[in-house]
């Protein structure tokens, strides 16, 4: 009897504390927007697919931040006189949950388009379903192969590495004269593995040499072993194909042991956290992006300012920018097609040319593969990404 009572007490206290915590955290949650607009036209539903929990949550949550910005902005005027309503679901980075969510969003919530997932793997899985159910899906981060090939409803608005990475290596080797390269790959990150392949080919093509190749894993924190070896190999430059968090940590360690070489990487390094974590140690790092923060289009500037205002002075990262653009592109296509029917606006969307998004100027090629032109090479200077070089890209 006593034991039962104490158990009940324990459970009560757990539930109570959970409630308190939930209500405490709840304050910061943006209000959902099922607006009772005077037009009383049903809102256009857009699904968000991405991880809000689990170890890839950061990419999903950042995409979502950008997405929410876009919703807010679009709803000031409405799209075709209707409001945009975002249906967010968390797939925790797991494919089975992603499948369930994609089905739910399409068959239950009746969304017309899905934005997400930031990772290539889940996009392929969700893309197959969305395509077969004739719902537009736009990934705001996937860079791997075999995504848009799934079918006419699958899009992405990322900067593809096949163009930007060789241009970057050409610049590094020819203009900077850094021929001896230390190449670091994050072995459990598909983006990094794919990008490293492109990097190592273009290093050789441009007359450079990979003097040492090292591997890390995403979420690693200790790089002392790799850095010690890199120091011994004495490279001119460190090329890292992964994301900004690991990039910053690698550079911290490198500077700690006295390596002077700078880091060069892909658009995965585009994140304010690179400087936040890396501080002075990432000064001089070179990476590429679809936009230049020094010569921002008015839209980009507006976006950055609004983002900072909304999210506690935080700067948007690449995922936030691409998430924002993804929805804006979809909304534009809906407006132009004058229809929220995916079967109709998907064609309008596929014909997008030179759209000036906040993550770059986007053109969808034949087959919906995006091109962002020009590509900007950026250097970290004074804790900011600054323009180094503009590389135009040919649009077929």
């Amino acid at each position, binding site marked *: 009897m006593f034991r039962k009572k104490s*158990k009940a007490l*324990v*459970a009560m206290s*757990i*539930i109570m504390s*959970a409630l308190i*915590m*939930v209500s405490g*955290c709840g304050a910061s*949650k943006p209000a959902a927007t099922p607006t009772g607009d005077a037009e009383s036209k049903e809102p256009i539903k857009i699904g968000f697919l991405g991880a*809000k*929990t*689990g170890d890839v949550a950061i990419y999903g949550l950042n995409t979502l931040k950008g997405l929410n910005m876009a919703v807010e902005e679009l709803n000031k005027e409405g799209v075709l006189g209707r409001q945009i309503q975002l249906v*967010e*679901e*968390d797939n*925790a*980075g*797991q*494919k*089975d*949950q992603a*499948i*369930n969510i994609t*089905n*739910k969003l*399409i*068959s*239950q919530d009746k969304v017309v388009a899905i934005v997400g997932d930031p990772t*290539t*793997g889940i996009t*392929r*899985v969700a893309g*197959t379903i969305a395509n077969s*159910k004739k719902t537009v899906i736009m990934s705001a981060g996937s860079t*791997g*192969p*075999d995504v848009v090939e799934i079918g006419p409803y699958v899009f992405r608005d990322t900067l593809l590495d096949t163009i930007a990475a060789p241009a970057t290596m050409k610049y590094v080797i020819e203009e900077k004269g850094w021929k001896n390269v230390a190449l670091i790959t994050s*072995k*459990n*990150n*598909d983006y*990094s*593995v*794919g990008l490293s392949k492109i990097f190592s080919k273009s290093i050789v093509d441009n007359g450079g040499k990979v003097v040492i190749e090292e591997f890390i894993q995403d979420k690693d924190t200790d790089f002392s072993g790799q850095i010690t070896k890199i120091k011994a190999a004495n490279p001119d430059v460190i090329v890292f194909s992964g994301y900004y968090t690991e990039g910053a940590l690698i550079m911290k360690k490198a500077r700690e042991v006295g390596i002077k070489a700078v880091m060069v990487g892909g658009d995965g390094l585009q994140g304010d956290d690179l400087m936040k974590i890396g501080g002075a140690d990432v000064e001089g790092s070179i990476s590429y992006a679809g936009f230049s923060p020094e010569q921002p289009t008015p839209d980009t500037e507006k976006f950055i300012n609004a983002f900072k205002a909304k999210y506690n002075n935080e700067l948007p990262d690449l995922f936030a920018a691409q998430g924002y653009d993804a929805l804006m592109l979809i909304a534009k296509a809906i407006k132009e097609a004058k229809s929220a029917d995916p079967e109709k606006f998907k064609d309008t969307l596929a014909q997008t040319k030179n759209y000036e998004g906040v993550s770059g100027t986007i053109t969808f090629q034949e087959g919906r593969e995006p091109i962002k032109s020009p590509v900007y090479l950026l250097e970290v200077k004074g804790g900011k990404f600054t323009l180094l070089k503009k590389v135009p890209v040919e649009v077929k």
Partner: protein
Amino acid sequence: MKKLLNNWIVQVLLFLSVLALTALSTSIIQDIIPPYLLMIGLFIGINLIMALGLNLITGVTGQLSLGHAAFMSIGAYASAIATVNYDLPFLIGVLIGGLAAGLIGIIIGFPTLRLTGDYLAIATLGFAEIVRVQFTNMKITNGAIGFLGIEGSTTFPIVMTIVVLTICCMVWIENSRNGRAMLAIREDEIASSAVGINTTLYKIQAFAIGSFCAGVGGALFAHTTTFIQPTDFGFLKSVDILSIVVLGGLGSIPGTIIGAIVLTSAPEILRPLANYRMIVYGLLLVVIMIFRPYGLLGGVNLRQAVRRALMIPKKKQAGRGE
């Protein structure tokens, strides 16, 4: 009548007709219910197949394994290689997935099953990590980039038929000389060997069958998602499957079924909680364990409970979760 039912051929026919009925009814259901629910049902089925395998290892034989996802991944990759690289039919691929996992289970089992309790747990955990790293670095699996181009051949009727088949096999094993030996090992290893049970043999048998089930589950998973990466089979996947078995009630087949239903649909049911979903999920695990430490159906004799429920004409159902 009773005599007829005891005839082996009649029983086989009966069993086959149950399988056929399952396949038939599920393919009708498939067309009626919305795809969202159907997919949840499908994943419940896949998780259940894997959980039944783990139940045999951990629940029946008492060997704590924290590496079930490794066997799942072996089955997934083996079947994918079979159907994609060698153009074998889907069901053969599933069988190959199961056999590959079972075989590796035996190879791993020989040395590690000498360990007991938590030492075995950590060894299986370590093994799973090694497998994951191996798949990340192999050419044929395409590393972190993932294995592409798997046909989406898994269907609801196939999964459900395999589920029924698995449940039947598990019930038969448990009610046989083998199953009793496995239960005895869980209860007391020394007494088991004193009555002549070759403990190593039966542990490996359980491990092999359990791994086979995980491999089959993995194969079905791969042919559902059509694309697999090593990160799909991390430690947390093993934990998911173990949670199903423990939550349902260790060693209880109906418990495992309930566990699979509850835990596979819990993240979906909890979806409205949005950002607090995983927080609540964590709490839920704790609360269920505090109130039902032996699992939802642990220590419930289902046959007795049903009999009691039938004798007293009350609507109360036996052993309902939640």
